[in-house]
Structures are given as structure tokens and as C-alpha cells.
């Protein structure tokens, strides 16, 4: 088992370096760089000023040197300084990451709380009203974008009941209730949209498992339905579902970027959007790096869980 985990960790490192490299290159490929943009505010700047700024930002050195330099600092936890705010990117991320992580976690938990039971019931009662209702719900959840549902949530309750979801971030110190209330609505919206995929996967896998011989044996032994479902079917059906949950983390990251902008959340998603608009290289790279590490890490955990839950994977 230790060897299996170790092998997975080692395989993850080149992926992360490749991701850093790609984000580094993509930001520098196209002309019209950061310096041009920063100088746009100073129309009388001479070529000399530009060269000076370029030198200060370290952009005059050859790309490979810049990259190795960046990589070296990144491994020591130094992600550079934002040329716009003059604040270290690492500090910004440290302040903002917990907010995004908390939001993403709530969304995934809420999504699973909806998806798993509904998916299981849908499979148990195949081709009944419950099944059709939940399948339609799943497709709707996949089709209706969360920025649309968020808009509706903000517009209509306000109009009809004079109530709207809180749109100002409440830290934990403002009281646990208002803190959780603030996160609840965006997390629910994102959770529902994540639930669609997980629900469909759960249903398909449950249907496949419920047709297996050992389930028939369990019925023949006279076990109760609850026992069969929880003890025999769920365990086997959940293994592929876990992969889907791992993949959903990437989708959730995209969702946090959009919903943070709508709900004015001080997380890394909103920071990322503004960094992109300003071509703030160090910040964009910092966010991409952190997100890539999170996603690679989650997939690592998923792979390891796979090994724990399914011995065939470990020894295969």
C-alpha cells in the first residue's frame, strides 16, 4: 500500500511542473506584455522607462532563466510580488484560499447529500415516477447554469418577499450563523449543479450492481432491502462514483470563480479574474499553481481511496 501511494505521489510531480510550465509560457507567448499595459497609464513614458521597468520585473532575462528562477522561488513558497498591488502573491493566496476552500467544500458536501440518496433511490425504483422525476432533475441541474439560478435567486425573492441572500462576506468572527448563512446559498447552487453528474453516475452504477448474482443471493438469503442496499450494493457501486467526485473538483473550481464574483466572496476566484484582466503574471501563475496542486492532490486521494476500497486496483 505504501509503495502504491509513493508511486502515485511521484507521478504527480511531473504533472505539476508541466502545469507551472504551461501557465508560465501561455502568459508570455503573446505580444503586448505586462510592461506595455502598465505603461499605458503613462503615455509620455520613454523606451528607457520601459526598459527600466522590464528590468525591475526581471522580464529582460531569457525565458528559461525566468522560468527556472520562478520555479526555484516557488518551491520555497515565494510566488513573487504582484506588480500592481506590490503585495506578495503568497500572502494574497494565504488570505483567500481558505474562503474558496470552505465554499468548495460546502458545495461538494451539499451536492453529495443531494446526489447520492436520489441516485440510489432512482436506481432502486427504476422506471417509476420517482426515477423519472430525479432523472429529469439531474438533466436540469446539468443544463441550467448556476450563474442563471444565482441571478434568479438574487432578483426574485427580493421582488416578492423583500428578502435576498446575503451578498456581503461574513467572516467566522461575525458569528457562526451568519457565516454559514452567507455560504449556504452559493454552495447550494453550485452543489445542485455538481449533483447532476454524480446522481447519474450513482444511478447507472447502482443499476449495474443490483443485477449482479451476489445481490440475487442476498435476496435469496432473505435479507431486508435496507441491508442489501447498504451492505452489499452501495460499497461496490460507489467506487466509480468516487472518480467522478474527484473530477467534479475541477468543475467546482470553475464554479467558485463565477459564483465568487456574483456573491462578492473574497476568495481566489475573484482574485484570479481581476488578475487576468490586469495581466498580473505572478498572481495568475500563483492561482494556477495552487489550483493545479489542489486538483492533482484530490485526484491522488481519489486514486489512493480506490486502492483502499478495491483491492483489485492495488494488486492489479
Amino acid at each position: 500500500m505504501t509503495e502504491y501511494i509513493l508511486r502515485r505521489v511521484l507521478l504527480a510531480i511531473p504533472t505539476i511542473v508541466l502545469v507551472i510550465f504551461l501557465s508560465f509560457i501561455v502568459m508570455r507567448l503573446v505580444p503586448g506584455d505586462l510592461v506595455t499595459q502598465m505603461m499605458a497609464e503613462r503615455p509620455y513614458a520613454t523606451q528607457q522607462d520601459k526598459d527600466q521597468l522590464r528590468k525591475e520585473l526581471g522580464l529582460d532575462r531569457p525565458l528559461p532563466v525566468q522560468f527556472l528562477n520562478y520555479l526555484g522561488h516557488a518551491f520555497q513558497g515565494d510566488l513573487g510580488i504582484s506588480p500592481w498591488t506590490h503585495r506578495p502573491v503568497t500572502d494574497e493566496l494565504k488570505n483567500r484560499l481558505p474562503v474558496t476552500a470552505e465554499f468548495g467544500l460546502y458545495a461538494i458536501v451539499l451536492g453529495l447529500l443531494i446526489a447520492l440518496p436520489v441516485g440510489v433511490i432512482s436506481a432502486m425504483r427504476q422506471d417509476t415516477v420517482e426515477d423519472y422525476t430525479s432523472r429529469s432533475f439531474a438533466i436540469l441541474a446539468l443544463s441550467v447554469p448556476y450563474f442563471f439560478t444565482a441571478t434568479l435567486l438574487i432578483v426574485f425573492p427580493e421582488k416578492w418577499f423583500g428578502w435576498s441572500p446575503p451578498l456581503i462576506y461574513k467572516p467566522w468572527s461575525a458569528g457562526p450563523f451568519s457565516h454559514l448563512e452567507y455560504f449556504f446559498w452559493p454552495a447550494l447552487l453550485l452543489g445542485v449543479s455538481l449533483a447532476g453528474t454524480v446522481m447519474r453516475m450513482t444511478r447507472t452504477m447502482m443499476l449495474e450492481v443490483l443485477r449482479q448474482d451476489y445481490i440475487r443471493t442476498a435476496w435469496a438469503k432473505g435479507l431486508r432491502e435496507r441491508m442489501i442496499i447498504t451492505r452489499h450494493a452501495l460499497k461496490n457501486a460507489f467506487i466509480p462514483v468516487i472518480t467522478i467526485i474527484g473530477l467534479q473538483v475541477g468543475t467546482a473550481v470553475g464554479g467558485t470563480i463565477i459564483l465568487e464574483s456574483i456573491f462578492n466572496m473574497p476568495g481566489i476566484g475573484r482574485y484570479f479574474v481581476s488578475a487576468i484582466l490586469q495581466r498580473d503574471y505572478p498572481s495568475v501563475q500563483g492561482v494556477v499553481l495552487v489550483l493545479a496542486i489542489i486538483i492533482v492532490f484530490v485526484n491522488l486521494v481519489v486514486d489512493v481511496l480506490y486502492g483502499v476500497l478495491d483491492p483489485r486496483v492495488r494488486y492489479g
Partner: protein
Amino acid sequence: MAQTTAAMQLPASAEPHRRLPFYLEVCVRLAKEKPMGLFSAIVVLVLFAMAVAAPLIAPFGPNELGVGTRLTGPSWGHIMGTDNLGRDVFSRVVYGARVSMTIGVAAVVVPTIIGLGIGVLSGYFGGLTDMIAQRFVDAFIAFPALVFLLAVAAVFRGHQVPGLPATGLLSTTNVVLMVSVGLLLGIGTSRIIRSATIQVKDSTYMEAARSLGCGHGRMIFVYVVPNVMAPTITLATLGLGVAILIEASLSFLGLGVPPDTPTWGGMLSREARSWMTQAPWMAIFPGGALSLAVFAFNMLGDALRDLLDPRLRNS
């Protein structure tokens, strides 16, 4: 395989059963067996027609200011109301279909070419080609989609690719968006096409073709590609919904299509939201159109998968 079974059954039946061409047969079965799939197909056709014939359908220009009183609700003159600049919401929704459908078409063409290219070559040749191609695919899949697209959109922001018009459907931003969404979907697709290719590769007819001395080109184009078309079609249809959502998300964030082109995502964006409490129709109609389009593509993709996946077909 379908042809061999048909040939074996032939003597048994009194008169030979004429098979419809494959794609026509799929259409007929879609109509017969999948009412929701048929409904979705009709919705998709209507949306395409709307996009093509937008100037004929829309009563006003999409950017025509003050065609009605500002912020009035739906009425006979403006069936979806007017927005904060007095523009006709219905006309904007109709024109908005153009962007979504163009992205949609690109999301079929580009990923199919990329997916088939990488998937078939990787699966067919195997070995080192496969190794290298798949590591590249791995790194790409590990990257969050929206983050990739935002980064690409940021890089090309405010730049002109020479030879492309400054505005309209083929402006730089649009083309960059189509290519990057296509790349993203295509690389995902290539995984599944690769495994389909590996399955096809081991079949008897491939062995027969090889023993007859077919070259790689003929093997790939005559035997492999037609046989992996089923998953390709399904993935393309499902990808359409994803592509439309992605474009809408980017436009919503203000990083998609330039604001002079009306898009469903852009109509829901930040600037518009400040007016929506007063004029909810500004949100409902573009959002509804967007949801309906994605819903239709998802349902159609599902129906096609049920019809085309042999594993599901036999059960």
C-alpha cells in the same frame, strides 16, 4: 459486425430486409423510440434556424437603442420586454443564438478532428506514440477547464490576430474561444476514442484487412474511423451543451465575446444585473434560452448514446 449478422440471417427470412443507411436508421429510431430525443432534436433545429435567419425573425436590430420605452415588461410590441437602454430583448435573444450556435458548431468540428486525430493515432499505433500522446493528454485533463480558458482569453485580450475581422462572429476573441474550447473538449474526447480504437483494432475484420495487405492509411480511414463514429457522435452532441455553457460563463465574466455582439451569457452579466430587480425579463429570457439550448443538447446526446452504444442496445 452488424453486416455479418445480417448476412447470416438472410436465407432465413423470406424476402431480404433492406437496411436503411446507418445515419438515416439512427434518425428513424430516434423518432420512434426516444420521444424526448426527438423533441430535443426539434429544439436544436429551431435554434439553428433562429441563428441563421436572425435578421428575418428579430423585429429590431440587436443593438438598436431606444426602440421602445426603457425597462418595460413584455407586451405585443416587445414580447420579451425592453432593457435599460431601450433595446428589444427578444431581438437580442434571437441574435444571441448566433454566438451560441457558432460556438456549438465549432464545438462539434474542432474536437471531432482533434479527438479523432489523437485518439485514433494513439490507439492504432500504440507503443511510444501512445505513451507520449497520453502523457500530454493527462496534463491537459488535470487542468481545470475554466482556468485554462480564462488564461487563454486573458492572453488574447485586446489583441488582433491578423486577417480576422475586428467584430462579429469571426472576431479574434470568438475564434480564439472556439479553438480553445475545441481543444479542451477534443482532448477529453480523444481518451474515449482511443479506447474505442483499441477495441476495434483487435477485431477480426481488421485482421482480415491487414492480411489482404491494406496500408495504414486505408486501415485507419476505411475500417477504424467509421467504426468509432458512434462514440464520436455522442460525445460531440454532449460537448455542444458544455461548449455553449462555457461560452456563456466567459461572456458572463466579461471575458468572452466582445460586448457589441449580443450573447445569452453576456445579457446575464454584471452590468445587466443591476437592472434586473426592476426588469426581471432581462434575466429570464436569455437565461431561459441558454438553459433550453443546453438541455436540448444534453437530452439529444443522451438519446443518441442509448441508440448508438452497442452495450446498451443489446440489453
